[in-house]
Structures are given as structure tokens and as C-alpha cells.
């Protein structure tokens, strides 16, 4: 560990690979570098200032048709040789007990580059200026003495990767990512309510500082503070069945849990059964299952400008492009990379992704979006005699086959005789995935569309937390069981 050999500052995976030949029949090397700064202010005072710098490589080795991985942050020749040997040993150890045989088609010989948007670099704002903005946001959230807690957080991330294989792949990608979280807690005696901007850390975009418009954020913070006060004084959400209008910042969760995860091909193959679970979707359902109403059009879309999980290639070098997963309510395609596609004999998408240099790629959601329809928001509200509007996720739970879900939101208003009326607090709803999507009766137009995401999608063994994006218009569902808090 203390040998004088050092890693070159400008690390070149292609030349590094050339020094590893002989360890295995085929090798791949994925270098990942990420610098992420998390700036958090609470009640106008610094709460956390943390910069995380991550740099390491995952070596893939194939021996006798078996693939295995070894990760290291020691990028010296000796460190990489050790990792390559370890991956080769693991591949040999898997031997006749490996799930699948490797073929070079699973790692296409693609060469290319991809850069996400960034108009204004992160270093054009000083830490002092950024902190002052967050302190000001806290002040705007505190619209009353009943606001007892305020928090303002921003995470700025620069991420780059380079993937090269002895089979000829060489791919470089670079991203800038911004996540925001602004929240007010209101208290009046024993009643406590929280309101944030679109739910905790749902504001996630690719881009530079141009994604942060603090003047607009300040105004939204004041609104969040006022809505927290409204919730304090509100009645509890009714316990009954009624039409449900979901805002895009809750649709993100609805799509994620009840469409995204069940369509992951590695779940359908059973890889995930011991952790997050299996799926109600079976291989024979593709092309046959009516997943939802004819208004339901869901697309895997790695190319929506600014959405959180845009990329050009996944982590096995497969070029990413748009694909319909569900069109007109019919299930067409799953979320699975080349390995799952080969094992199942089904089409998929380029979504074989790893959370960092120390994890092997698995099938993940990326950007998964519901296409806009043709209803205006006013038309959707006007069409409801007895319903409820909910926004901003605060609670989520779904079974291991992704059927029975229960979700809660921060904020809700009743819809009565075609009009938004009283605010109600502690709104929740529950349902079963396919019947719920069949109850989709109106889809908002592009004016009602919102783009969100999360850095916290958990899955895999060993566990991985990955970034996903979800965009959706407002959507109206018919006859949903809703309920409030208490007891």
C-alpha cells in the first residue's frame, strides 16, 4: 500500500487497459470522478458544508466466458493490476455456477462522447454568495412566527466517466447536476405541518447555475411558508373514494414506483427478489398487457434537455435513445440493458447503470416520463364533481411485486363541483398499480408539465443509490381511495 508508485493526474483508461492484458480473456475499465458540494442552511445559519470528491475505477474481467468485477481507488499500475487479478479470480470462482455466459455483444465496441448542459459553471458563484442566497431563502420561508423551522439546501455535482474495453469501446461522458431542497415547518400547539418546494429534493436537474433562479425561488419559498400555515389550520383529508388530481411533483413518485420498478427486466428475471422484490409483470406480458387507460403513454427518454438522468450511453457502452415502454396503455418494452435483454430474449433500453465506481451496473430507471395529453388544468378541475388535488410527495410504500401502493402528499385541496376549494392536510391515497392506471381519465397538456427527479433511488445488492428523472403533466384518476391522518 505504501509503494512509491503513483497514479498519473491525467489518467487514461485506454492505456491503463493495455497494461492489464494477460489477466483475462477480455477486460473493461470504467473510471468515475465526481465532486459534489452540499450546502445547507437551517434557520438562517450554516448547517452543513460538505464537499465529496470521489475517484476510482471498476475493472471488469472475463475468464472462460464468466464476467466479474473489482473496484479500486488505487489507480496506479499496481493497483489496477491487483483489481484485474481479483476480478479474474472471481470470474474463475463463479465458473459453472454463473447465471449467464458473457459475449462481446454485451459490451458493444462503441466510441463516443456526451456532455450534459452547463451554461453557467458552478465556480462563477462564490461560496459566500451561495450561502447568502440560502440564508435569504430561509428568511423568505419564515412568513410567520408559527414557522418554527426553515431549511435551504443545494447540492452541486460535477460528474465524469470514461469507459473503455479491450473490445474497442471508448466512451467519455460529463454532467453537471443541481439538486434543491427548501422546506418550512409550521407549528401551532400540538399541530405540526411541513411544506417544501415540490417535496424533499424533488427539484433535480442537469445544468449549471442557470438552473438556479433565486428571485423565483424566494417567491416560491414565501408560498411554501404560507401553505404550511394553511395546512396548520386545515381539516384532515377525508376518508372516502373520489377523483384524484395529481400534480407532476407527485406523479414523479407514482410513475417511479408503480411503472418504473415493475418494468425493470432484472426484477422480472428475479435478480432483485432478495432485496426490493420481484415484479407482477411477467415476460409474456410485453405486447399484451393493458397496463393502463389509452391515455397512458410512458417513455424512457434520456434526451429531455435538463432532465436529471440524461446521458448518451449506459455503463456497458450501449447508446441511449428514446423508447416507448407503454403506448396507448399497452405494455411494449421493459427497462433492461443488454445483459437482461439477452437473458430474457426481449427488447429493452440502455439503462445498465452503476451508482459509482465501486458498484457494478444493473438495470435502473433513468428518465421515465408520462407524455402530455390535451387537457388544460382548468378543464381537468372543471370536470370533477367530487375530488381532491394532491401535490408533493411525503410518504411512499409499495409491495415487493409492485402492486399495492400507499402514497402520501404534503398538500391537498378538495375539488367540489368543478372548483378547487378547501385545503386539507395529511392527504394519502392507496391503490393497486394496474387498476389505478386504468382509472387515468385525463392527462394534462404541455402547459401542465413538470420535470423533476431524485438522487435517491435505492436498489441492488450490494445496494446502490442512483439519480433518476421523471417528467409528467397533471393527471386525473377516477375513483381512488383517499384518507387522512390521525389515530
Amino acid at each position: 500500500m505504501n509503494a512509491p508508485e503513483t497514479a498519473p493526474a491525467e489518467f487514461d483508461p485506454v492505456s491503463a487497459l493495455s497494461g492489464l492484458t494477460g489477466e483475462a480473456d477480455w477486460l473493461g475499465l470504467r473510471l468515475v470522478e465526481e465532486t459534489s458540494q452540499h450546502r445547507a442552511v437551517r434557520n438562517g445559519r450554516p448547517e452543513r458544508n460538505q464537499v465529496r470528491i470521489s475517484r476510482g475505477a471498476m475493472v471488469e474481467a472475463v475468464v472462460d466466458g464468466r464476467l466479474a468485477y473489482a473496484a479500486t481507488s488505487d489507480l496506479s499500475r499496481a493497483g489496477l493490476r491487483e483489481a484485474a487479478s481479483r476480478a479474474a479470480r472471481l470470474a474463475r470462482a463463479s465458473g459453472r455456477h454463473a447465471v449467464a455466459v458473457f459475449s462481446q455483444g454485451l459490451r458493444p465496441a462503441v466510441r463516443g462522447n456526451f456532455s450534459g448542459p452547463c451554461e453557467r459553471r458552478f465556480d462563477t458563484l462564490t461560496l459566500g454568495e451561495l450561502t447568502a442566497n440560502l440564508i435569504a431563502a430561509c428568511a423568505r420561508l419564515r412568513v410567520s412566527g408559527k414557522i418554527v423551522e426553515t431549511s435551504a439546501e443545494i447540492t452541486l455535482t460535477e460528474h465524469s466517466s470514461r469507459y473503455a474495453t479491450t473490445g474497442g469501446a471508448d466512451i467519455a461522458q460529463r454532467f453537471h447536476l443541481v439538486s434543491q431542497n427548501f422546506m418550512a415547518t409550521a407549528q401551532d400547539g400540538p399541530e405540526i405541518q411541513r411544506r417544501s418546494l415540490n417535496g424533499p429534493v424533488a427539484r433535480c436537474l442537469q445544468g449549471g447555475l442557470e438552473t438556479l433562479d433565486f428571485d423565483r425561488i424566494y417567491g416560491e419559498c414565501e408560498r411554501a411558508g404560507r401553505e404550511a400555515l394553511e395546512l396548520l389550520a386545515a381539516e384532515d383529508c377525508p376518508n372516502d373514494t373520489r377523483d384524484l388530481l395529481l400534480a407532476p411533483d407527485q406523479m414523479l413518485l407514482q410513475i417511479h414506483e408503480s411503472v418504473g420498478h415493475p418494468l425493470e427486466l432484472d426484477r422480472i428475471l428475479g435478480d432483485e427478489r432478495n432485496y426490493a422484490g420481484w415484479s407482477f409483470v411477467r415476460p409474456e406480458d410485453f405486447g399484451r398487457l393493458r397496463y393502463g387507460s389509452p391515455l397512458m403513454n410512458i417513455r424512457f427518454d434520456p434526451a429531455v434537455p435538463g432532465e436529471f438522468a440524461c446521458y448518451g450511453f449506459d455503463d456497458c457502452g450501449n447508446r441511449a435513445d428514446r423508447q416507448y415502454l407503454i403506448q396507448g396503455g399497452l405494455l411494449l418494452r421493459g427497462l433492461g440493458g443488454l445483459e437482461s435483454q439477452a437473458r430474457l430474449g426481449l427488447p429493452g433500453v440502455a439503462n445498465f447503470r452503476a451508482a459509482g465506481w465501486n458498484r457494478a451496473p444493473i438495470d435502473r430507471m433513468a428518465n421515465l416520463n408520462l407524455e402530455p395529453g390535451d387537457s388544460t388544468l382548468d378543464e381537468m378541475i372543471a370536470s370533477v364533481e367530487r375530488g381532491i388535488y394532491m401535490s408533493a410527495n411525503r410518504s411512499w410504500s409499495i409491495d415487493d411485486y409492485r402492486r399495492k401502493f400507499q402514497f402520501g402528499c404534503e398538500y391537498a385541496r378538495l375539488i367540489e363541483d368543478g372548483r378547487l376549494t378547501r385545503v386539507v392536510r395529511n392527504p394519502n391515497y392507496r391503490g393497486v398499480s394496474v387498476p389505478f392506471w386504468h382509472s387515468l381519465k385525463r392527462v394534462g397538456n404541455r402547459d401542465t408539465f413538470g420535470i423533476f427527479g431524485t438522487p435517491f433511488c435505492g436498489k441492488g445488492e450490494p445496494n446502490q443509490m442512483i439519480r433518476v428523472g421523471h417528467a409528467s403533466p397533471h393527471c386525473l384518476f377516477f375513483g381512488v381511495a383517499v384518507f387522512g391522518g390521525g389515530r
Partner: protein
Amino acid sequence: MSFARDAHRLLERLSEASFAALCSGEAASLSLSGEDQTYLRFNTGKVRQATGVRQLRLELDFRAQDRQAKFTTDLSGRADQDLCKLHALLARARTEAAALPPDPFAAPLENHGQSEEWREAEPPDTAAVIEQIAATTAGIDFAGLFAAGPQLRAVRNSMGQSHWFAASGFFLDYSLFTVNSAGEDKAVKGLLSGAGWSEAGLSAAIEADRQWLDRLRFPSRTLPPGEYRAYLAPAAVAPIVDLLSWGAVSYGAWKKGGSALRRWIEGEAPLSDKFSLRENFALGLGPRFNGLGEVAPLQLPIAERGRLQNLLVGARSAREYGVASNGTESGLWSEEQLRSPEILPGDLPERDVLKRLDSGLYIGNLHYLNWSDQQSARLTGMTRYACFLVEQGEIVAPIRDLRFDDSLYRILGTELEALSEEARLFRATDTYEQRALGGSRVPGILLSRFRLTL
């Protein structure tokens, strides 16, 4: 454990050099975490992915003039290179600290003493483990994760403090699947863990699981939502204890309006006098020191016979609210967290569980818990794995999974009828970013009523 020995020497060198480079009025702490793990993921008894992970992560906590800046970086393990990186971070930390306003609640770095704990064990041969799992589970649909290798946590600071913990061990977290006579998939869950791998231990566990699988092959019953008498096996209680770390027993969360047990803490709502919860580091699942080097008490009672004894207090909450820290760690997701919780067992022998349950549900596991109304301590989740309908003290049939939505004031309060005499140890199996330390020990609980909703 040469990995850990090398890491120990590396941290010594990094701390000596970086602390010597501090200027007057500056202080710093270095926390090191690392692992040299082999992870084997299985599906249908075969290896889906095999991954070796060797990683060392260093956190620099820099203080100057009441300002705090933190930096985390991956280390190469090569001292000269890592020292260059650390010196660059120190320079950046000075710049950042100067740009920040004072942080009045950052607890100053202090010398919280010295300790070293080594639990060395030779990791098992990977090829042998794969062969043994394949042979032992032949004919059964087996999925799971095996992890083995050294893990370490350490913290040193410029005030002279030094704590070190290194351990080596394994876990095999697995599921066995079968198809019942109606064509439905059913499964049981298992966990083996410890310092040394044993093929005999695996065989015994799988053999015991086969008996549950036999019971799961009967046709499932679909039960309507409603209130049921229920026994939650220890593996179903463990995730409820995990959820308590989402603010419920955190002093900081309580003060900020984020504790689900606020009414209990403030004396407005009781918990059962059968319920006792403590942090118990005597379980030996991880280090007692936290990221600042504060050493938690060996045992810290939180609830004794239903009465509040202590909340978890970290150094930041202690400084903000003027109370004493009890060495608690704050997590990535929440305020102060439980690291080694234990619910004290009761007087219901496991052999009598079905008889005492009489008619109701035997719930083997719960899945995907979350607060459905945190202010009311209401939580929701799903039944999972081996869950059965029991009538007159006999298992009648497996059930189709149900959603529950109930309150801690009922589960740990009014409806808590008994706790099992035996408790089970659950070593942590989380592996986000790195393999976790810690875990819990919990008994099963018998509930007079348990609310199922979907």
C-alpha cells in the same frame, strides 16, 4: 487483515502530517472508513454478479474561528499521493471556512480519548462458498447476497484523540422461493452472519427453512382488510425498530417537529409497560465512538417499561439545545440514529406463540415501511415472505400479502399483549456505498389487534 493494518499505518501518517500543518486557531479531525469486501449476488442458486470492492474514504472536518467545513475523498492507499491530496483539501478548507458565517452549533473538536479494537478473521475462500451454496441449495430457488471481508472505522483529531475499530466477518442474506399448488410464488427469508463462515451452519439454516417452504406450498388465503390478532416474528419487528431511526427517538428531530413519538416524549400518550428499548453496544456489532470520537455509553436506556428514559443526543443537538450529548451519530437521512438497538424480550416462549395467538396472523416479515402520518406515529408497510393464517393455535394456510397502516401507540402500546422470550440478532446488511456496521436484537411481539388496510 493486512488491508486494515495498512490503513492504520496510513491514517497515522496522514494525521501526523496534516495536524502538524495546522495554523494557530485551527483544528481538524480525520475520519477513515474502509472495506475490502467480496460481494456475491445470487439468483436461482447461481452467481449473478461477483464484485470485489477495496475502498478507503477519508473525511476531513476542519474548524477555524467557529467555522466548519467538511471534505470527503477516496484514498488510493498510497501515502505520498494521499498526503498531497489531503494538503490540497486543507488549503481549500481554509478558503471555504473563511467564506462561511460562524456555525454556532458545531461542537468543538475535543480529545475524547483513545481506543483500538481489532476483530481479525480470515475471510472464507470465495470459490468454496459458491460451491457450498450451490450444493446446499440444490433443488431450491435461492436468491441472496453474500458479503465478506474486513471493515474499518477510525477517527483522529488534532486534540490528540484516536479511536480505531476494525472487524472482519460475513453475512449471507437470502430468500428461498417456491411455487404453491395454486401457482403462486412464495418465499422465506434467512440471514446468516458472524466472524467465521460455516458450511454446517448454512446447511442447518437451509434445512430449517425447508420446513417453512413446505407450509407455504398450500394454497394461499385472501383476507379482507380489517383488524386481526397478530404475532410479528422478530424479523418483522426489526424494520419497525429501523423506522424509529427516522426521527422518532432523536432529540434533535423532536425539537424540530420531526419526531413520530412527540406525544410520548411530552407525556401525552403512553407506550406499553411491556416495552423497553435501549442502545446496547454490548451486542458487539460496531464501534461505540461516533464521527466526532465521542464514546457512547455501553448501554443507553431509551424506554424502560414504557417510560421515556433518554432520547438520542448528538453533539450538534447538545450544543443547540443546551443538553448533554450521549455520543449518538447523525445519519445521512435523518437526525440522531439508533446504531445498536435492542428491544428487551418478554415472557412468551416461542414454542407457545401459535397457541397464545390462537386465531390470527403469523407475520414473518414486513416490507417497505414508512410513516403514513408521522405526527400520529402512524406507519404503513406490507407483509412479506412467510405469513400465515392461524386458527385455534394451528397454521391453516399462507396468506396473500396485505398492507398495514397502524400506529406505534397501538403496536408498542395499547395492543402489545406479549413479547417473545427469545430475541434474534440482526446484523446490518445495508451496503449503500459501503457495508454497514451495527444491527439490532429484537423479540417477536404479540398484538391483540393489527390494522390491515389493503
